[in-house]
């Protein structure tokens, strides 16, 4: 079986990066070989179908966005039925509702009273689809169809004035959505530029 240790050694050991990665080559060596962990290998192969059904996560490049589509008008109906009870009609927050509000705050981040919402704060629209599909409605997660998720995402984006009211949101158009705070983040992880 191929071993990480060999590959790391092969690729990087002589490279200038050796100093940086040396730490984890060593860590790996002790993780794998010394305690004999590699002697046990009990994982069972996974089929593409099982993976596809389980894989809920969507990266900002749109990988894994499903088929389907929705409009703000369709989303408004879903929202009224399944979301407004906790987020308020049109996503406007009032006392007693879930925080943060889903709407507003655009342009407030530098102010004395910054309001972080999907509209004002989130860097990628893909995150909205990913999160609503996996976690909302809070009392019935994973209950929405992909069309409903597209529609309700479209509705939240249009309430924030980020897309037009007649926009159709699907795997392609969601990627074109420009979130107002897209460049508002600074990565603290070395080597990753946001």
């Amino acid at each position, binding site marked *: *079986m191929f071993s990480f240790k060999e590959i790391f050694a092969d690729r990087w050991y002589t490279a200038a990066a050796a100093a940086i990665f040396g*730490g984890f080559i060593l860590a790996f060596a002790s993780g*794998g070989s010394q*305690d004999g962990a590699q002697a046990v290998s009990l994982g069972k192969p996974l089929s593409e179908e099982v993976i596809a059904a389980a894989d809920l996560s969507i990266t900002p*490049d749109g990988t894994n966005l499903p088929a389907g589509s929705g409009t703000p008008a369709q989303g408004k109906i879903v929202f009224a039925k399944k979301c407004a009870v906790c987020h308020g009609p049109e996503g406007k927050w009032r006392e007693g509702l879930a925080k943060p509000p889903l709407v507003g705050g655009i342009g407030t981040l530098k102010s004395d009273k*910054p309001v972080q919402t999907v509209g004002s*704060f989130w860097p990628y629209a893909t995150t909205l689809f990913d999160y609503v599909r996996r*976690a909302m409605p809070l009392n019935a997660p994973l209950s929405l169809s992909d069309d409903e998720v597209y529609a309700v995402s479209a509705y939240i984006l249009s309430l924030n004035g980020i897309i037009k009211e007649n926009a159709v949101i699907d795997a392609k158009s969601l990627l074109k959505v420009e979130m107002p705070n897209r460049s508002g983040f600074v990565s603290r992880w070395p080597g990753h530029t946001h």
Partner: protein
Amino acid sequence: MRNTTPKAAPLSDEFAAGGGLLHRRAFLRSGTVLATSMAAAGLTMREAVAADGPEWMTKQGAPLRPYGMPSPFEKHVERAVLLPFGPVADGTGVALTPLQHLRGTITPNGLHFERSHNGVPQIDPAKHRFMIHGMVKNPLEFSIESLLRYPMVSTVCFIECAGNSFFNSNLFSKAMQVPVGHLHGLVSAAEWTGVRLSTLLEETGADVDAKWLLAEGADAAGMSRSIPMEKALDDVIVALYQNGERIRPEQGYPMRLVLPGYEGNMNVKWLRRIKVLNQPTYTKDETSKYTDRRPNGKSNLFTYTMDAKSTITHPATGLKMQGPGVYEISGLAWSGHGAVKRVEISADGGNSWADAHLEEPVHSRSLTRFRMLWNWDGKPTTLQSRTIDEKGNTQPTRAKWSRSYGPGQLNHCNAIQSFTINPDGSIANVFI
């Protein structure tokens, strides 16, 4: 003695710094006095017991039971549960470790802090599957039964919620008067035992060029976070045991990730899936939630290591002084960067500082207990502690911390905690 300002009064050789901080040898002296007075009273332990007539020595005790529980007299020692959304979302919130009632450095399993985002799932381990897929040669799934057969490693480490100490963050302009467990109880420590994540990644033949993983929980929030491959290959554990017993449901039963030193939210509980990727996923919790807005409106993203930090736990808010005299100041220090090297204590509001004694063993990236004797003269004063870790990291004042983040910002607050001791024996949280 360190950093004594010219203002401070001259100290006798008993004192380590201002405000009544004592050298350790002061303890030996008062100890001698105590032993002498007991001998003078001429009491033996046996006589004292007989005079007291403890009724529990005169009748049979309770029958043995299969699982030990705390004494009913310790009922008050429990986690404070805070639900930010109230009944709208009663599975979304925090339960804080009652630091004011605990000593030592390992948190009892039932008192380990908890941050859950949509309730605690009751997972049947026989039905739980953990999968690794994405940029791997062989996507694999592991049953709990099979994971229990792998060679296991243990690590003693703290887990700290990025939102710990939010009462002292920019969410509040005035210091809240709550017990120290409310202030800093989103940190706990345990011995975690399980399989190295690197072992399982190697078995799948994960692509070494892939720089990121996505880890996902099997809870109703589908909690998901991106994790750098470098960390995954270094020291991440797929943990099955917590302090020797299987992980509690609140902590991720049947399995969770443990990333020593990294913010709590990344230690994904109820772990069900890892996807190997060449980019971060930018999940809701690493964008909307665990990011830190700066004064200029930009936000820090992917701040993983929990900084050097400490708090005095005795005396602290939630406790009361019993009049002037000698006390042991005791507290907890930690750093996600490595081992705690020194802890300094001030008993005069930061004018002078002295090194506290660190209890062994000092585990890297775990809770370290520090202590120091202190003679309280009954006058108002302010106690503080600050950690210096092995990399030289230390803690800012609350004022400095506050200025480096935007309004309302709460995560990654490692400001110095200040407790004012009042003449009436009450203890107050103060912002300095």
